């Protein structure tokens, strides 16, 4: 009886570990989808309301990483600090560089140049989202499956 419980626990935990290792695709998809929304709201804002960027950085979403990204940048500019703002742990260097150039570039232009800036980034974000969706489709269940197989293998060895 104890052995059965141990076997189930091993399979479940290895499956979960496997899933969490490839979970970054889902996180990435959520993060960049919100970035696309943020970029669109910036565009509407520059065209119509012309609120300042600081007010827009108060945007709250259900993605904690994205909220931290915006609020840390707000804190950085308001405190006139040279420190880096928050970037999610799972992000690779290319994406980090992209986010840095984006967030540090917004608000620094007149309206027409700002719209050009936003539009150019909109295209890049769209391309990134397509790739992320493709990667998620390919790899999202891979970790889960590998974790499960690893767990089963471990159980066979234990038995």
């Amino acid at each position, binding site marked *: 009886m104890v052995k059965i419980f141990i076997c189930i626990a091993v399979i479940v935990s290895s499956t979960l570990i496997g899933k969490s290792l490839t979970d970054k695709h889902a996180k990435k998809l959520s993060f960049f989808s919100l970035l696309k929304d943020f970029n669109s709201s910036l565009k509407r804002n520059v065209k119509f309301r*012309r609120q300042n960027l600081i007010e827009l950085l108060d945007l709250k979403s259900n993605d904690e990483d994205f909220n931290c990204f915006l609020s840390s940048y707000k804190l950085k500019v308001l405190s006139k600090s040279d420190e880096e703002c928050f970037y999610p742990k799972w992000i690779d260097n290319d994406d980090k560089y992209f986010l840095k150039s984006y967030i540090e570039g917004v608000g620094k232009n007149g309206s027409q140049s700002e719209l050009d800036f936003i539009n150019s980034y909109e295209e890049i974000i769209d391309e990134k989202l397509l790739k992320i969706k493709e990667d998620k489709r390919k790899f999202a269940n891979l970790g889960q499956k590998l974790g499960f197989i690893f767990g089963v293998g471990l159980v066979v060895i234990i038995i």
Partner: protein
Amino acid sequence: MLDFLDYNLKNKIISLFAKIFEVRLRQDKPVAVKGFDGEKVSVKYLSSSTTKNDLEKIIYSLCNYSVYSVEESLKNGFITSNDGERVGVCGSCVLSLDNVVTIKDFSSLCIRIPNDVKGCSNSYFNLFSGIRSCLVVAKPFEGKTTFIRDLGRNYANEYNVLFIDERDELSASGKFNLGKNADVIRYSTKKFGFYNGVRSYNPDVIVCDEIMSSDDLQAVQFALLSGVKVIASIHSNNIKNLLKKQFISAIFKNKLFDDIIVLDAFKPTLLKESQWLKYLSA
């Protein structure tokens, strides 16, 4: 005050005077601060200078990290801070078809700090009962804006007063109390403010700062001829030179303002008609 400046620089500036009127930041030159030390108005210099990078950071902070939101005022050479400080900007103008599109390569900033002196217009206000149109004449830095703000506030306790605050200096984004019956249109041109104000707000008095052109004057005339009293200011060192400005003489000829006040070192002097009539006929 001066919240858009670096914390250390702000503290150094504030510690120089009991009351600060003006701060000038120039690229690679010491910071100049004009203020009142309790006895006289003087200028003091900080030992540190401002770099080009510092100026850019200040501009960016001044516009709340959103250059597009201050684009129109930047084209006119100034940005107003959240606390109503008017910052004149010098740099290289970018032109398109003879129009200034924006300013880049900032080289110096002139920060004017608004002062709200309650009661500074009382000597004039208490002379008459009822509302009177008045034109305040003074050269820069003589207290025109402070005077008309206080006069408007005095009237706003009893009458409906509309402030046309082209540069957000009169209300400082609501930081200055303008009286219980005050309405404020911020960042509007005089043309928009006067024409729409007369139509939509039913004001007894309209207050506006700095008549600069014949377009401004036309808007003021429209209100005066519509039966609305106007309190306005104009730059000039004396009435003789003021009347040399082509666009202004019509307002004197038609006697549209009830009173002309000349401010000298923050002290108002009410001019008699004979004092300006001789220059008009000349």
